[in-house]
């Protein structure tokens, strides 16, 4: 099993990668379960059981509306991770396109696009998110589009630097001699060689996407209630931090577990391909 061999490096098991993979699988498993089964209906309220402490009945206790925190975390992580995935893929696809063209062709196109990139990076993310929400109404889709747009500059920069280096290599000249078209050279020949840096950028991108979904919901721009998202649950739980900390700690931990898992995997992942 060639992959198993890779798990050992310099005579030591890659512990961190395995911890990371374990955490990520745990988070992914929970959110997948969330799609089909939750012990209680995540939105079902029960005023008698407000802010109940964690018990067998309610693994993570209940929140200020008497809703089961464990079910909400399951459903919420599904929403948050889907948003994370969607945002990071928009960012990656958009970033790759922008990065490829600016890196490969350079010249005026490079100058203009890079300036727009810097401008986008300088503008605070909540303003742009607001523009989207203002223009298209608030909701998960608008949030995904807004954040996706914001993630394009960072990916573009990674891909562009990759292309700047690769396009000087002889195999690109060879490809041109063989009559391959510009687009084919860019996306069939050069792109696979930037896979290493793109992969680690994807991992970091996913983490930032999950964290910014949480921040956006904190400023009540993201997912609309009563639909649970980890960020929304955190912001709703803040006033009850002292009396019912579990309703804040549970979503917080879920974010931590997933982001830490992806982070640990990204260290090794990056190395594998460079």
């Amino acid at each position, binding site marked *: 099993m060639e992959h198993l061999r890779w798990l050992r490096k310099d005579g030591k098991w890659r512990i961190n990668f395995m911890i990371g993979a374990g955490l990520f699988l745990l988070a992914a498993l929970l959110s997948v379960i969330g799609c089909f089964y939750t012990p209680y209906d995540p939105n079902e309220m029960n005023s008698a059981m407000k802010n109940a402490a964690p018990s067998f009945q309610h693994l993570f206790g209940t929140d200020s509306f008497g809703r089961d925190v464990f079910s909400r975390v399951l459903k919420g992580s599904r929403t948050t991770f889907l948003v994370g995935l969607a945002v990071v893929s928009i960012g990656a696809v958009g970033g790759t396109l922008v990065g490829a063209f600016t890196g490969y062709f350079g010249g005026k196109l490079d100058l203009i696009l890079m*300036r727009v990139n810097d401008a986008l990076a300088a503008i605070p993310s909540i303003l742009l998110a*607001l523009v989207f929400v203002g223009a298209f109404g608030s909701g998960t889709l608008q949030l995904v589009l807004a954040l996706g747009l914001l993630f394009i500059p960072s990916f573009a920069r990674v891909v562009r630097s990759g292309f700047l280096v690769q396009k000087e290599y002889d195999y690109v000249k060879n490809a041109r001699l063989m009559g391959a078209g510009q687009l084919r050279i860019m996306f069939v020949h050069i792109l696979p060689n930037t896979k290493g840096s793109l992969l680690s950028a994807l991992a970091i991108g996913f983490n930032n996407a999950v964290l910014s979904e949480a*921040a956006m919901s904190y400023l009540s721009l993201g997912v609309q209630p009563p639909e649970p998202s980890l960020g929304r649950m955190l912001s709703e739980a803040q006033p009850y931090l002292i009396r019912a900390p579990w309703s804040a700690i549970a979503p917080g931990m879920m974010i931590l577990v997933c982001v830490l898992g992806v982070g640990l995997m990204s*260290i090794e992942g990056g190395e594998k391909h460079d």
Partner: protein
Amino acid sequence: MRYWVKKTAALLVTLLVAAFLTFLAFEVIPSDAAMTKLGLDATEEEIQALREQLGLNRPLPLRYLSFLADAVRGDFGNSTQYGRSVGELLGGRMPVTLGLAFYSFFLIVAVSLPLGILSARKHGSHGNGGFALLTQLMMAVPPFFLGMILTLVFGIIFKVFTPGAYVPAGEDFFGFLGFMLFPALSVAIPKIGMTVRFLQNSLNEQLTADYVRTAKSKGCNRRRVLWGHVLRNALVPVVTFLSMVMAEILAGSIVIEQVFNLSGVGRLLAVSISHRDYPVVRAIILYATTVVILLNYLSDIACRMLDPRIRQI
């Protein structure tokens, strides 16, 4: 010399593009300052009268040009929300946000540099070991969640600092340091993880370079190799990275100021956006963009000083 001219031109273009994007943003966001100002039972004529006074009815290009003209003169007009000059408003807020930004930047540099160097020497590649786990953990914590926990633990339970009692640096510097430690930490901790990892990768890369072998062949011991040769080479990419981190700190301060009830520029921005106080918002955006651009300049100068090869362009 030519390099600097080109650099300034590029940065000015970024500034203009940022200003235009902000301007466009406000055209798209529905509702306007006049209606928000006059509230529920304002009549139609009153709203039009106020729009007239605030010059909101002028055609779009005209407004944009007048905005640019004012900005150049440093006059950002009056806030529709508070009726006071934007400059005065920002002036009051600036020390809080800048204090937070520089304090967390100081923490980041003071903590991650020694940690990065320490770990590079001991652990070799970043991959394994508890150290990598620690840095990843730091990067994984959502800042405002950290802020909440810090306030709860240190503010309420251990009463190390009193939440909300912002002590301006002017009055009592140590009080300021004491209070701001926790907001600064919640901004800094995720960034410390990133910087340590970045510094470690850069150091490890340099440690395998040929000139390190030459240095050892000259008789340098591990310490002299690290401090005399490798560190300076490794710092060049780190400086650019740190200028990027500083830009992120400024953006991140919006949420942290909310959690710690600091009335800084970040919170003013959040409030102004929700009140459609356009003059304040565009001033803050320009301020933020200029700060980011200045940082680019500084990191460029630092890079040129550190690495003679760049000087040559």
